[in-house]
């Protein structure tokens, strides 16, 4: 392996700047007592990491360990945007809950850096490091409200099950290495795909990553962890790690390895189970945060439908690959909507996150028209109504599924969309058609804080923009082939 050169550094500039700013924040903490100051530094860090991608040139670094291409460019932008919005949304939350901002922001940035590594990794051990970076930061973030039992429970559960999943992943890497003699994705892609040992290794990897994206039957931890974690952290969980892990899954299974019935059925079954587990679970939730957690599982299921389409398209070797674009577009649209929705939930929860039941949202349409309208928009996008990003997300996935003759999967997804419609609409109905019956709203529920309002506005604008003119983003995604590039 050659010594690290400037070019190599170039390839990981985003991750580097996120890490540097994380460290800077921790160092600043003793000196800078001003919360807003720290938020400001963190915001600059998140934005700068993303902006460095514009000076980076495409290519591989560190002897092929990481690859910087359109695919990773897309994910770095998405992850940077998520980190930016989450930090902005956390500002008022941390103040309300009396939590320490510096470590929080540092952890968010470290987690983002880890996800960035995941998105551009070309080698399994590098990916493992990225996964660990993001996971360990996430465990701490989940338990950041130390005085809350739920938060501690959340961290504990996430840590135990997460470590378990990581072990699967690592074991899978070991077996894959045993089967192919390499941990580089392009070498694995070239290996004979029907070897049993390789298949076993990849299955273990799929299980490990399945935990991280909350695919059923590995989704059990999700509702508890999402509910217990501080809400801005939940926003991060539902958007960032999910997107980054899906990126890695696409890199691994978007290769010739996937071109077998075996993987096709694996993804088919995962997709169906995940959709139903998420939607049926969400149906019976009275707690809004928990409902959104279950819905997040369902959306992972929709994304997996695109994966099943990827595997068939590869099998049929049928021209362009719209399924990648569909998966990426869906991830982006859901990530934004999810951050927006959780931000509103975080603001409305009040001190200690006590006001999260459906009843607490009753009459929101008259009490807080802006928050209610924005939350409705996000719910409509999750539901897939037109002029929102979610609509085109669903449309592209439908299109990919039907193009690969996965009619049943498309129909099952359609049925799930209708189930989803019920619980999303129920919340809209509660907000607009019921009257608030509880005690006088507690402090902190008066209205969105300016920073949260900014987050919500940005997320809403992008959601509508993608819902009207999806082409600008999608064109970028479809024209490129975000595959493992052999060199």
């Amino acid at each position: 392996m050659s010594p690290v050169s400037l070019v190599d550094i170039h390839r990981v500039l985003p991750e580097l700047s996120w890490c540097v700013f994380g460290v800077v924040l921790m160092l600043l903490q003793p000196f800078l007592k001003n919360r807003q100051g720290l938020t400001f530094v963190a915001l600059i860090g998140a934005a700068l990491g993303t902006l460095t991608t514009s000076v980076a040139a495409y290519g591989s670094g560190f002897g092929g360990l990481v690859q910087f291409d359109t695919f990773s460019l897309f994910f770095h932008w998405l992850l940077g945007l998520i980190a930016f919005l989450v930090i902005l949304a956390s500002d008022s939350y941390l103040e309300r809950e009396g939590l320490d901002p510096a470590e929080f922001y540092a952890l968010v940035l470290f987690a983002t850096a880890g996800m960035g590594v995941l998105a551009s990794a070309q080698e399994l051990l590098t990916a493992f490091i990225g996964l660990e970076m993001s996971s360990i930061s996430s465990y701490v973030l989940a338990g950041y409200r130390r005085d809350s039992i739920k938060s501690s429970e959340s961290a504990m559960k996430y840590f135990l099950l997460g470590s378990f999943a990581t072990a699967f992943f690592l074991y899978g890497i070991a077996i894959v290495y045993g089967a192919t003699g390499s941990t580089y994705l392009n070498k694995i892609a070239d290996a004979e795909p029907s070897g049993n040992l390789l298949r076993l290794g990849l299955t273990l990897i799929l299980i490990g990553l399945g935990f991280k994206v909350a695919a059923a039957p590995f989704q059990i931890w999700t509702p508890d962890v999402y509910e217990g974690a501080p809400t801005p952290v939940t926003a991060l969980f539902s958007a960032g790690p999910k997107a980054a892990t899906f990126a890695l899954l696409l890199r691994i299974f978007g290769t010739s390895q996937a071109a077998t019935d075996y993987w096709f059925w694996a993804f088919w079954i995962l997709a169906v189970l995940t959709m139903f587990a998420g939607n049926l679970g969400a149906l019976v939730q009275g707690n809004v945060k928990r409902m959104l957690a279950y819905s997040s599982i369902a959306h992972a299921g929709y994304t997996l439908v695109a994966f099943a389409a990827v595997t068939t398209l590869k099998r049929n070797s049928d021209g362009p690959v719209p399924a990648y674009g569909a998966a990426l577009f869906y991830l982006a649209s859901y990530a934004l909507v999810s951050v927006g929705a959780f931000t509103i939930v975080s603001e409305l929860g009040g001190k200690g996150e006590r006001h999260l039941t459906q009843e607490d949202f009753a009459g929101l349409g008259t009490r807080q028209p802006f928050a209610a309208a924005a939350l409705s928009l996000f719910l409509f996008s999750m539901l897939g109504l037109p002029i929102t990003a979610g609509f085109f997300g669903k449309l592209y996935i439908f299109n990919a599924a039907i193009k690969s003759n996965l009619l049943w999967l498309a129909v099952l997804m359609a049925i799930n969309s209708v189930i989803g419609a019920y619980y999303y609409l129920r919340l809209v109905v509660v907000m607009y058609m019921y009257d608030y019956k509880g005690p006088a709203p507690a402090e902190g529920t008066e209205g969105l804080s300016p920073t949260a309002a900014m987050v919500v506005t940005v997320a809403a604008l992008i959601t509508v923009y993608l819902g009207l003119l999806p082409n600008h983003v999608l064109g970028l995604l479809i024209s490129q082939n975000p595959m493992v590039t052999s060199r």
Partner: protein
Amino acid sequence: MALTGHILTFLIFFPALGALALLVLRKEDERGIRLGAFAISVVEFLASLLLVGKVAIGTPGYSSEEFSRWIASPAINYHLGVDGISLFLVILTTFLTPICVLASWHGVHHRIKEFHVALLLLEVGIVGVFLSLDLFLFFLFWEVMLIPMAFLIGIWGHDRRIYAAVKFVLYTMAGSILMLVGIVWLYNATGTFDLPTIQKMVQTGALLLPARTEMILFLAFFFAFAIKVPLFPLHTWLPDAHVEAPTAGSIILAGVLLKMGTYGMIRFCLPLFPDASHRAAPWVAVLAIIGIIYGALVALVQPNLKKLVAYSSVSHLGFVVLGIFAFTNISLQGAVYQMLAHGISTGALFLLVGMLYDRRHTFEISEYGGLSTPMPQYAAFFLFVALSSMGLPMLNGFVGEYLILLGTYQVHWKWAAWAALGVILSACYLLWAYQRVFYGEVTHEKNRELQDVSPREKWMLIVLAFVTLWMGIGSTDFTRRFAAPCEAVLQQMNRNVMREVAVPTLPEQKAGRAAENSTERVASR
């Protein structure tokens, strides 16, 4: 005028702009909001009348077409057009909206601004559905329309409004999401969302689907439309939605929304899936006839006046579906006519029932009786509208039902014979209800003091009565405009059936030709 080239765009988005303008008004300025909404909807109505001159008489095809690219991949275009069938449905929509504003003048007391914004947004969706010539655009408006309607029912409705609103949305969405799958499938088979292009491909045989595929696609579309119509046994959302909706909501729902379903059948199911339509026709006809008789029988025993009118819609729309699936020119014309006539007369019935509710806050027939004594003018209007709804000659309902039965009789006399029962039953339930509400002694003391129609109400009813009469005696003013498009729909179906028997095509050729065809079209643009 620059506007003339974009009259359809104007028609779709003017109410949206109007809704934005209303948002600027102060919440307290109730009169200003109502007047503003009324002015906007009247301007919209007048603008829609301009379309009458644009649609050529005697030749099928779309006029005032607008086309621009919207999304490159998948190729979604902003393609609008109007023909004789959609023309009157658009005008019906724009005609009923100002009446809805007037009907809510005293009936809607809270969140007045939001109410009128929702009403105008609803108009955007409905007009968009009727004018879209791109499958995708059509679907988009179809979905967009859902939310304002759900809000109209759920916020300004009666006691069980929320249940009714959610039920309405879920039913419609269950149908439409399958239609979306169908649309996407069709897109993958043809490479385009453009309706005229696909129609042409079906007609010329460039697109020949296997029988099973065609049937599945037909069902995906038909299911969505049948829920909307609603066809028996998918009608159960309708009584709830109607009874719980505010008067304006019921008028729009019965007047126009149900017609989106039958319009969809004429515009999409028949020309795009001709063989499947032929094969499904007997089943559909049976369901339609069951709907006609069942709706009428249930209406007969309803103690609730508004529910009675709601079930009469199930019955009347059964006629429309029967007329469509009899596949004769006369019955199809009758179906289109019945759509319009039902829009006017059932809209008027809901308006009248709503007026009673404004006064007594109940729909129970037993609460009324002898109303013709305190409210003679109201009773006269009610009788007139009821007679038109049951199909008295010289009034609008007669023309549609007569044409449908005549056209159906020519091909399936049994269908017509069963359906004719519905005509008799409709006379039974309407006249019986009329007798119980208006004749005899005044049975409740409260009813003695009821006010007769106010000038505002009277003018609405006079206008509706005038249209009812005009459609009854001047029916050719309408039919001559949609006769040719109806004929064209049938031509597209039959020619395809004949040609398919003559020249079987190989799958490879089909695919190749389909691709050629679509590229040609793109190039020609």
